[in-house]
């Protein structure tokens, strides 16, 4: 049964999903390097960029195209079991977009990035030289705890990235399913006709970008929409 809307090659990942993915790759690497080389001023700026990205991705998971939406790919244990057994959906049709098992990885990665960036907003070094933009709202001791968690959190990111890369390799080698090209081009060709996932109109993209931008602006301003008068002539030491 082939419907009119079904075709073998589809637009799988929309441009915002792909840009989010690859900019995140660069940012995580950049955040790592700036920490290791002790360029904490830049680390904090990149952290704000990460805040914007991860906030956008969460909003896009509600507002975005079909394959971007959490509701379209987050599934329960039954769907995961069916996928593990057949590599397909419970009804036997091919999975288009994140599969039910991979969904856990997506949620895990986006979740840990959100937690990590949230911890970083309150973090500080023990000497009180570098501060996350919201550090002034927590005590020194609380900030120290959150900073330790921020440092520990990176290990979880490394772990999930390793799982992510391991899965990509497994799919490429064992299942002959290359996951990277669609994440670059957005297109994927299936062995059988599948339905083209619904896209998202530009106004939804504008809303997601605007909301993420507003939050990032507010955080970057130290929790203000209108920056308080700057008393320190050069607080950015």
């Amino acid at each position, binding site marked *: 049964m082939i419907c009119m809307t079904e075709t073998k090659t589809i637009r799988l990942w929309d441009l915002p999903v792909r840009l989010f993915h690859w900019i995140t790759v660069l940012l995580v690497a950049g955040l790592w390097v700036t920490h290791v080389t002790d360029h904490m001023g830049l680390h904090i700026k990149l952290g704000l960029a990460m805040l914007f990205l991860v906030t956008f991705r969460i909003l896009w998971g509600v507002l975005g195209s079909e394959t971007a939406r959490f509701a379209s790919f987050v599934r329960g244990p039954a769907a995961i079991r069916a996928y593990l057994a057949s590599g397909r959906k419970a009804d036997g049709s091919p999975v288009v977009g994140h599969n039910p098992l991979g969904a856990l990885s997506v949620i895990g990665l986006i979740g840990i990035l959100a937690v990590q960036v949230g911890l970083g907003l309150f973090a500080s070094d023990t000497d009180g030289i570098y*501060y996350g933009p919201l550090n*002034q709202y927590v005590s020194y001791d609380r900030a120290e705890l959150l900073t330790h968690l921020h440092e520990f959190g990176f290990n979880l990111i490394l772990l999930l990235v390793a799982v992510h890369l391991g899965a990509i390799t497994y799919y490429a080698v064992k299942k002959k399913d290359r996951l990277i090209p669609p994440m670059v081009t957005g297109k994927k060709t299936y062995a059988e006709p599948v339905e083209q996932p619904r896209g998202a109109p530009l106004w939804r993209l504008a809303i997601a970008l605007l909301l993420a931008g507003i939050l990032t602006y507010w955080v970057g301003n130290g929790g203000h929409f209108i920056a308080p008068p700057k008393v320190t*002539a050069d607080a950015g*030491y």
Partner: protein
Amino acid sequence: MRKFSMIVGALALGAAVAVQAAAPADVVEARHKEYKEMGKAMKETAGSFKSGAPDAALIKANAAIIASKADKIPGWFPVGTGPGVGTKNEAKAEIWTDKAGFAKAAADFSSAAKGFKAAADTGDMAAAGKALGALGGTCKGCHEKFKTKD
């Protein structure tokens, strides 16, 4: 009388030796605590400035804490408390190999700390803010050369 003063002298000497002989690990821990207290004072000060309505009394109190410790820094690094001694030791070997550099960094910090305290004491928050920036620069300058990363 002479005997009494000799006993006092011997006790004083003994006490001095006891202080000098403080276990290196304890010295490391003590200075770590001192630096944390300065870090806390820096954080509270910076937070107050960032609020847009700096609390002059709080800033003055924290400036006094930092200034009261600043002069003591060279004494926190006796020979034998270098890398590998104790836990939480972030001192680099350069503190002892580049003695002049470390002394200068400590002196710069001390003079910036005093400058900040003087500005905070006047209650002129714009001047205090500027002095805080200079102080932060001297913290950072010294840490870059003489402190390992956390």
